[in-house]
């Protein structure tokens, strides 16, 4: 029943038979991904869950086109990226993907505002337009008051909110969040997860969450389980609908 529902939706990510091997041609050749098929539809909140060593980082790198698959096809928002050159990949990353990392990866000694502006700077957008947009996004994540602070003056949760604002800067096709709450305490982590839900529900943003935590994964619309380089399971998040009902009853406060 779910599949019929999904078929009518536009595909944001489409991977077919993705393999990733390292040290190809040497005796140390090792295959990390053994033919993965993955589809993510527009407006979906999907999680990929797996233990460490399951290949989820490798898969994330391929989804985020930081890396190319050794074999297989990968299409992002209708663009076949397996044949693109390095500079084209940079441009596609810039335009289509918003990264949120476990370690925030804000540029040190640079204000939150400048950090958020960065993706648009690389897109070649004028300073004034950029600053306006960055301020808007910082306001949305509740960081407007501290936008002139440098990362070392911000708490972990604040840094992650800045990073989320940055990921939204070029209106990406998907947000790729790699263990976004991994370095945060549970309360702050909760706030970040709530922010993702809000972005998903209110703005309809497509989000791919990569995590090792089943608990977090269950909050998402669809959960893909990765084990030893293959996807072993696909299910609807257990607490997703529950959350939605709660949200209907009382608005989520972020």
């Amino acid at each position: 029943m779910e599949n019929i529902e999904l078929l009518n939706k536009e595909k944001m990510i489409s991977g077919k038979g993705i393999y990733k091997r390292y040290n190809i041609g040497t005796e140390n050749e090792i295959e990390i991904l053994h033919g993965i098929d993955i589809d993510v539809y527009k407006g979906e909140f999907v999680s990929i869950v797996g233990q460490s060593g399951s290949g989820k980082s490798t898969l994330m790198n391929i989804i985020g086109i930081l890396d190319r698959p050794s074999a297989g096809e990968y299409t992002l928002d209708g663009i076949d990226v397996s044949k693109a050159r390095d500079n084209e990949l940079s441009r596609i990353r810039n335009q289509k993907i918003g990264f949120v990392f476990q370690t925030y990866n804000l540029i040190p000694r640079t204000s939150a505002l400048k950090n958020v502006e960065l993706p648009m700077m690389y897109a070649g957008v004028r300073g004034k337009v950029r600053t306006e947009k960055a301020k808007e996004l910082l306001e949305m994540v509740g960081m407007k008051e501290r936008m002139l602070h440098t990362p070392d003056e911000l708490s972990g949760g604040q840094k992650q909110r800045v990073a989320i604002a940055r990921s939204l800067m070029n209106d990406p096709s998907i947000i790729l969040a790699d263990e976004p709450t991994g370095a945060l305490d549970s309360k702050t982590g909760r706030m970040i997860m709530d922010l993702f839900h809000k972005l998903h529900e209110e703005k309809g943003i497509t989000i791919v969450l990569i995590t090792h935590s089943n608990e977090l994964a269950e909050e998402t619309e669809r959960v893909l389980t990765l084990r030893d380089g293959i996807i072993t399971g696909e299910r609807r998040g257990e607490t997703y609908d529950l959350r939605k009902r709660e949200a209907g009853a009382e608005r989520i406060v972020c």
Partner: protein
Amino acid sequence: MILENVKLALSGLYANKIRTFLTMLGIIIGIASLIAIMTVSDSMNNSVMAQMSGMGANNIEFFLMSKSYDENQRAPKDSDYYDDKTFEAINNAFQGQIKGISLTKSVGSTKITDKKKYANVEISGVNKTAMDANKLNMVAGHNFGNSEYDGVHKLAIVSDKYVNNLFDGDANKALGQKLEFMTGSKYYSYTIVGVYKYSEGSGSSFSMGTSEKDMSTPCYITLNAAIAQLKDKGLYDSFTVVANDGVDATALSTSITDYINKTFYKNNDTYEAYGYSMKEEIDSTKSMLSTQKMAFMAIGAISLLVGGIGVMNIMVVSIMERTREIGTRKALGATNGQIRLQFITEAIVICLVGGIIGVILGIIFGMVASHMMSYQGSPSVVGIVASVLFSVVFGVFFGFYPANKAAKMNPIDALRYE
């Protein structure tokens, strides 16, 4: 994008003030020493050249030289010296190429006293060519007339310093006065007919370190008068040939030397003529000075090179430190070219700012040093422009390797870097 990168570089460098300053220091010292050396050595060259060409680039000096380095060689006899016969022969053989032969007989140095007043003079007898070569600037009276060189006229020309010391600076009062001095045991008396303006370097005396009052200045009498007074036989161990303008003095020097040796010294067992042109002297001084300048500049260039390597070193370290940042930038969509440009810009900014500070310090040091050595120092504009351009080139050169390293980083490895 360029402006963006410059801003980025400036804020990055500002955030690391001490490290940035230490990195720049190499460039600052290198450029400053280059500019200072150029300024000092240019002003030194100019001043030395001005002094030397004042002595006459057309002059060819002749001396007597012994043919061998025999320690027991005999002292020169009368027949070994140059005399009128030599000069006549040269005048005939090289007619048209030479302006004349300048002859000087030194009569001696003495102190002329008048009650409590005194003045030191060096008296020399000169022929017309020698007098012309001195290019005296007369302030009163007149120079020797052509007829006054013929026969023995007891006339003298003194300097304005002499007048200052003995006649309270009134040159006209000195005219017609007697100048008396002694050679052997006999007093000779000359009538002062002219006063010239003494300038440092005119004549042969360098009178550094003596007070103006004690300074010895040249006093000229005619060559014939000097010969008569010294009871001289008209023999010379040296003379100066003045070449005509446009004649290659160096070549002429060689041919006159050959001519004299062939004509007069072929059968002389001990002595021969030796001539060299002032132009040769100037050329060799010029090349010596420029060699010296090159040597100093090489030292400056080495310090600049060390500075440049320092920049490269810091850039490499800084890129290692900022691996994660580079990975993040790449993930956010920076192309390899943008990353490369960012780091090259950073290196250029370091080198350019360092270069500009270096130029300013170099000009100050150069001017102060030239001033202390009492040369007219002015920094060369070419040098300044070249230094600034050079520091940009330096930035690109020493920034390229680290920047390229940054640009080629794999974003995955860079993001994972701890």
